[in-house]
């Protein structure tokens, strides 16, 4: 097997990213949509860390930690909204969440 280069990691990250985008665009269940967003963020993280190794410095890794923080915040708020919404409408399907006000 050949030497693993940065491009290999980028391809994996791109694949995860596309999978995440497909999930966000096509699934109905909000929980799965949020999970797909986590997938996208992970793909970005993988890119950053791969580049960090390519350039030989740690800026990419530091940035990926920021993205992890962001992902945690996003999950907390997203799931909070989801619970609040579920309590009022008893649905967690994106195509039924079409009210701006209730």
């Amino acid at each position, binding site marked *: 097997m050949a030497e693993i280069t940065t491009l290999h990691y980028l391809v994996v990250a791109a694949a995860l990213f596309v999978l995440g985008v497909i999930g966000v665009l096509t699934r109905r269940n909000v929980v799965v949509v949020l999970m797909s967003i986590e997938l996208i963020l992970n793909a970005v993280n993988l890119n950053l860390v791969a580049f960090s190794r390519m350039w030989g410095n740690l800026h990419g890794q530091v940035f990926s930690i920021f993205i992890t923080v962001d992902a945690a915040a996003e999950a907390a708020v997203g799931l909070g909204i989801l*619970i609040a919404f*579920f*309590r009022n409408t*008893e649905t967690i399907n994106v195509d039924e969440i079409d009210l701006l006000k209730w």
Partner: protein
Amino acid sequence: MSPRTNDSANLDLETREKPYLDSNELIINMGPQHPATHGVLRVILKLDGEKVLGTECVIGYLHRGVEKIAENRTYTMFNPYVDRMDYVAAVSNGLGYCEAVEKLMNVEAPARAKYIRVILTELNRIASHQLWLGTHALDIGAMTPLFYTFRDREEILKIFEKYCGARLTTHAFRIGGCQYETYAGFEKDVKNFLSFVAPKIDEYETLLTTNRIWLERTKNVGVISAADAIALGVTGPVLRASGVKWDLRKAQPYAAYSEFDFEIPIGTNGDTYDRYLVRMAEIRQSLRIIEQAVNGIPEGPIMAKVPKVIKPPVGEIYHSIEAPKGELGYFIVSDGSTQPYRLRVRPPSFVNLQALDVMVRGLLVADVVAVIGTLDIVLGEVDR
């Protein structure tokens, strides 16, 4: 009276607030096979998360029709059946039944028989409270007291076995007195037991009374106010823990209780911890009574003059005694034949169980277990 009372009267399931998060509340069957329901009680819990919105007791899994059986047995034949109701306090059940029939027949047991009755009944009260303490502590998660109390309860059962040959369902008393004279060394055995068990009670208390976790699990849990308790007909230690000084041994003395000096321990808050303290104090009072009784036991016959075939006159009678769990009453209607026309038992556990719903509303699942334990129910008695 109590710092936190559950307003019991007007709590019905319709007025509850909308449960959190999920529109339909979680309904859980606790029992009939559940480690903490002390037999075959089935409690249907309506939960909001872990919060109890309401309970419903389903009973009758142990129903044997004891009251109906009584109508087809002679008074003497029915005597052993009552032991099978509250099987951990069989002696008390027998005492209540025998005294009720005696009252119906207008006989009185001789003094010596009365003293023996008091000794055995109080021993049984201690045994019952010990068993309650062990299982109650186990429900709350403390394993060890169970084994300690069983070790010490064994000594009481040994005395029973030596006296009448049975350990649990004793059938110790007969209508009109006692069947057996005390065995040689009975007094010594009882006195030995008294000196043996007193330090053991302290031992239980060191494990629990000041244990922080025990305090947190029992204080302000399952509070019932005196008014609520009276309204629901709750009796026994549960009522006394709410601050009502009501003990049939003092209020309407039976057997030889009027001759002894003892106190009625009462609580203040009516919570689970107070019920624990009251029962522990009751064990000590029972020890006092036994000590006085065994020292002052008179000589004489143990059986009053009772005809071979018991045929009480036509009439009806209600007689109740203070069983370990509360007021145990027998209502007997006699049509002058050898069998009761109707016999009705007022079991303390059955009535006390009513208070469960009032006590656990708004508490957590773990508290339901603690409250079932603290009510000290025996399903044989609830279902009869």
